[in-house]
């Protein structure tokens, strides 16, 4: 059981994480943050495997991973 947590205030919707996620957990959502960007959202129905690739590449440090 694992999950990713996204800090909405930092995300700029660059989609580098979406391109890397092997399980398709991450995708661009409709929510807009204070910076004016659509932010990424994690799909709870898909299984996160805590590979941490999204968190390592995230230029904003917006993603934290739990396992």
């Amino acid at each position: 059981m694992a999950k990713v947590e996204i800090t909405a205030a930092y995300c700029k919707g660059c989609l580098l994480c979406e391109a890397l996620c092997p399980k398709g957990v991450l995708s661009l959502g409709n929510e807009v943050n204070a910076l004016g960007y659509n932010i990424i959202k994690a799909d709870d129905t898909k299984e996160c495997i805590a590979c941490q690739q999204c968190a390592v590449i995230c230029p904003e440090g917006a993603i934290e991973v739990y396992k």
Partner: protein
Amino acid sequence: MEKIYSRPVSLNPVAFNYCPGCLHGTSQKLLCDVIDELGKQEDTIAVMPIGCSTMGMFAFDFESLGACHGRAPAVATGVKRTAPEKLVFTYQGDGDIGYIGFSEIMHAANRGENFTVIFANNGTFGMTGGQMAPTTLIGQRATTAPLGRDPSYGQGMPIHMSELVASLPLPVYVERCSVDTPAHANATRKAIKKAFDIQLAGKGFSFVEILTNCPTNWGVSPVQSIAWIKEKTYTEYPLGVYKDITQEG
């Protein structure tokens, strides 16, 4: 559930001032991660140059100061000589290190000063609007090279900073890394850790070049810019350790 990846403590709780998908953010996050690991948040002084790279100082939660354009290695020399117990590094872009501050970086390296230079190479002047930088690739378009960089047109060849610094006798550790994939980012983290360890052991000058992107001025999306690095930047700037004399003597 246990948290297995968290944002570095020495990174301020604010968003970076960079464009979406800019790998300056990833590089500076890795830097903060290494500083956290070394437990040096209170003993670090970052010397920031002019350019996009400067904006890291708003995110770093440790001492930082801004130098004149290109003069960060000269200022860092003074800082390190007056406070030898501190961890001192500069974080410079390619316009800063290759054009304006070329003299400062080469002479700091030639003196074998005991600090670390982190060089983010994205092949363009980002902040001023995408002018041609010394590291711009052949054929790459820039606002001052609208038809693409052409050496036969007097625009010169891309400068290879790592090779130049490694050709000097005194630098201890010179490596070129990248942050385009998580694996490369982890390798970059190790390289930065090694460079800081060398400095803290008083061995001398260390230089880490990081290949980054500039989606805004390359005119591509962040995801396409990663493909660009793989396709074009690697052929001009091969990754690898260019000098490491820590094992000798």
